[in-house]
């Protein structure tokens, strides 16, 4: 008990000092911190603990790729491919190409053509799964020939999954470009599960703008407005932004993909906000062709299935650039420019969960958490003092280091401090002294049974240790499960609880023991002070 190797004392002090250094950046005011940081090499870990979105304010949005719409596009593409193959192979089809939810079916006019088209149709399927890993899975399309020249093609489950996975990847890229344009600091955009994307933007004030940017597919199309008497099969009625609908040709002249740049601006004559855009060479050429052929006719600018405006082509537009006007505000023109620059999303995204906290509420939560932590700590410290006297001082010192170690641990593993996390820390303040209490009570008990002071101290620590381990393992199990199942703030609670359990064993057992050993050597007590 008395022998406490010097290296142990030194390493405990060193650990405490290291912990202090790790926590220091979080304690300094921002100005001091940045000025110190500028004098340090950039690799030095001088960063404050990250605050969760519930404390610093910000937006947490969970988006989901709309699988039915992905499937629908896939089926439509499949129909176009089948039509192209039939045309190329000059194979007659009876009754057109039928579409169902999961695929298309076609009946060959002459069943003998089956052999000719089957290999071509089969080639439409692509291997799914990760090709890099050599795990070429099932084909993305099932081709089933039936009786009398009937062929059924259906998109396989693996094919849909594959497409969804790729849509998620592409969407993340597009969303990143859009959010970067907002000028947000350190947004976090990551895949979650197979079909979801988590977007976290800390410190954002206005979330409605963020959601506008996240929510729109931004598929831009230039199409001709249908003339009266056009074939109804080639025309669809699209809603207009100003209200009403407009008959528009189904064929798309130029698409948003062919844009190279888009910037908000003002119309020189009306000084109305507009969006200026520029086409790439291919788009510019196509646009020039179409406008040359259709002078005098109106064309429609369609965004996500809605007609923004339908200006008349006054003269051929051959410069490869143009402008979109459509009753914009400065902000909506700016948004549209951002969306067009960042590109269209490959699929529709739905917001399935949204949690935003304003900076005001975040600050209130920080204040409340701090107040609770101070009051809780003060109560526990005072209570330990009146109950255990000198030993209470040791326990309280250990408690101080315990709190320091929790924060240091969080800084080290880069954990996020949330409001439930603060609650967890306050809770561990109450529980960390449990180890001390177990030890002290055991020491008292052993002393009452007639042991000498030294022998009671020794027995107290030894016997209580097994209990401390057993009782903390159960708590740790609960915290670990919470960590793996919880999300966001709750996860922050699990982290601080788990760290608190680990550090309390170190501080309450080892540190208290060290202090008591030193105390015993110098005070030479004749009677236990508890």
């Amino acid at each position, binding site marked *: 008990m008395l022998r406490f190797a010097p290296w142990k004392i030194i390493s405990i002090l060193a650990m405490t000092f290291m912990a202090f250094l790790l926590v220091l950046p979080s304690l300094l005011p921002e100005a001091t911190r940045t000025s110190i940081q500028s004098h340090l090499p950039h690799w030095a870990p001088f960063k404050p603990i990250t605050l969760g979105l519930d404390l610093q304010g910000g937006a947490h949005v969970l988006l989901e790729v709309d699988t039915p719409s992905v499937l629908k596009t896939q089926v439509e593409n499949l129909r176009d491919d089948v039509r192209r193959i039939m045309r190329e192979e000059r194979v007659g089809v009876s009754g057109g190409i039928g579409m169902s939810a999961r695929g298309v079916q076609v009946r060959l006019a002459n069943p003998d053509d089956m052999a000719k088209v089957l290999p071509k149709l089969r080639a439409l399927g692509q291997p799914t799964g990760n090709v890099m890993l050599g795990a070429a899975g099932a084909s993305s399309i099932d081709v089933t020939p039936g009786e009398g020249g009937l062929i059924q093609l259906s998109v396989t489950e693996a094919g849909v999954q594959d497409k969804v996975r790729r849509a998620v990847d592409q969407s993340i890229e597009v969303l990143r470009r859009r959010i970067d344009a907002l000028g947000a600091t350190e947004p976090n955009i990551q895949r979650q599960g197979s079909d979801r994307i988590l977007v976290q933007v800390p410190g954002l004030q206005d979330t409605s703008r963020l959601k506008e940017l996240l929510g729109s597919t931004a598929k831009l199309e230039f199409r001709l407005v249908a003339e009266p008497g056009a074939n109804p099969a080639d025309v669809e009625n699209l809603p207009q932004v100003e209200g009403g609908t407009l008959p528009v040709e189904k064929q798309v002249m130029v698409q948003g993909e062919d844009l190279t740049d888009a910037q908000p601006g003002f119309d020189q004559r009306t000084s109305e906000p507009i969006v200026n855009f520029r086409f790439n060479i291919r788009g510019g050429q196509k646009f020039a062709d179409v406008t040359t052929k259709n002078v005098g006719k109106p064309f429609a600018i369609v965004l996500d299935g809605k007609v923004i405006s339908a200006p008349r082509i006054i003269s051929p537009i051959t410069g490869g650039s143009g402008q979109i006007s459509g009753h914009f505000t400065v902000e909506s023109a700016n948004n549209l420019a951002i969306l067009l620059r960042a590109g269209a999303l490959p699929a529709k995204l739905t917001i399935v969960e949204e949690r935003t906290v304003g900076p005001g509420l975040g600050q209130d939560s920080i204040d409340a958490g701090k107040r609770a932590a101070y009051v809780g700590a003060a109560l526990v410290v005072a209570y330990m003092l009146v109950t255990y006297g000198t030993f209470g001082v040791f326990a309280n010192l250990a408690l101080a280091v315990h709190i320091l170690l929790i924060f240091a641990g969080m800084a080290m593993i880069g954990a996020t401090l949330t409001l439930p996390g603060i609650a967890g820390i306050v*809770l561990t303040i109450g529980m960390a002294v449990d180890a001390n209490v177990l030890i002290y009570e055991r020491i008292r008990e052993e002393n009452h049974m007639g042991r000498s002071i030294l022998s009671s101290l020794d027995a107290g620590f030894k016997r209580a240790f097994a209990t401390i381990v057993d009782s*903390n393992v159960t708590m740790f199990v609960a915290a670990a499960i919470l960590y793996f199942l919880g999300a966001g703030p709750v996860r922050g609670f699990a982290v601080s609880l788990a760290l608190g359990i680990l550090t309390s064993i170190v501080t309450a057992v080892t540190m208290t023991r060290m202090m008591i050993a030193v105390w015993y050597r110098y005070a030479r007590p004749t009677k236990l002070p508890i």
Partner: protein
Amino acid sequence: MKLLRLTPENTKFPFMRFRRVSYPFSAVMSIISVLLFIFHGMNFGIDFAGGTVLELRAKNGVADVAMLRNLGDNLGLGGVEVQAFGNQSDVTLRFGLQPGGDAAQEAAVQKVRAVVQDGYDIRRTEVVGPRVSGELVQSGTLGVVLSIFAVLAYLWFRFEWQFAVAAVIATMHDLLLTVGFFSLTQLEFNTTSIAAILTIVGYSLNETVVVLDRIREMMRKYKRMPTDQLVDMSINAVLPRTLMTATTVLLALAALVFFGGHVIRSFSLAMTWGVCVAVYSSIFICSPMLIYLGLRTDGRERASTAEQATAEAPEPAR
């Protein structure tokens, strides 16, 4: 300096005698909890029920609660719950899932936002769609069940099976009573509440393990003592520690309840209740259970404890 003691020295309370009272009492409490859960229900937060919560602060300092209540009818959103807390300016607005899937929720929020944003600062928005809330229910339930099994396994490994079973029964008892507490008080039940429940499970087991640990130790020391006497002696021995720790934890929790703010109040209240129940059950439910489960300190059992003692001899370095 005279030090504070919560318990007199060397208590000899006959705790086991109370099992004839505590068991019927707990049985009744558990049944009431189940009945409350079935008939009174829980106040599920949007994490589990889906829906939307907006926290507003009136710009002019006084929230127009009547206007906000009527918002639901005026916008066709169904019932809107308006809750004021503390001062006159802050309210939360809650409305349920809108028919029409995930996109419909977002549309509803936009409508409300448009109406209130002139008069109010929107301090918090939470929208949980129908599918996400379903998944949260799943993972929450899974977490509670998993933790009970994990701990059962650990205790079985460290103690004898009677201890593991007794600990799990006591934990289930605490769980039930906590659920009953949530139902009775109609505190909002959300993901933080799951955190509270898992922490209560952890704390309850922590309490139980401390008592069981001492019982095991006494069993090795007094091999011929009748079980009820032995259990009584063990509980009395750890009683100072039990009360001391419960007090420090309750002090910390009191700070959270009174100063931690409204966002985590339901968590703090539930934890406070759970700690009290856990202390009660570790003494009055778990320990007597050992007698009912036929833990004996003589004969056959002695052989197995001796085995265990030797098996544990090379304990890890301390």
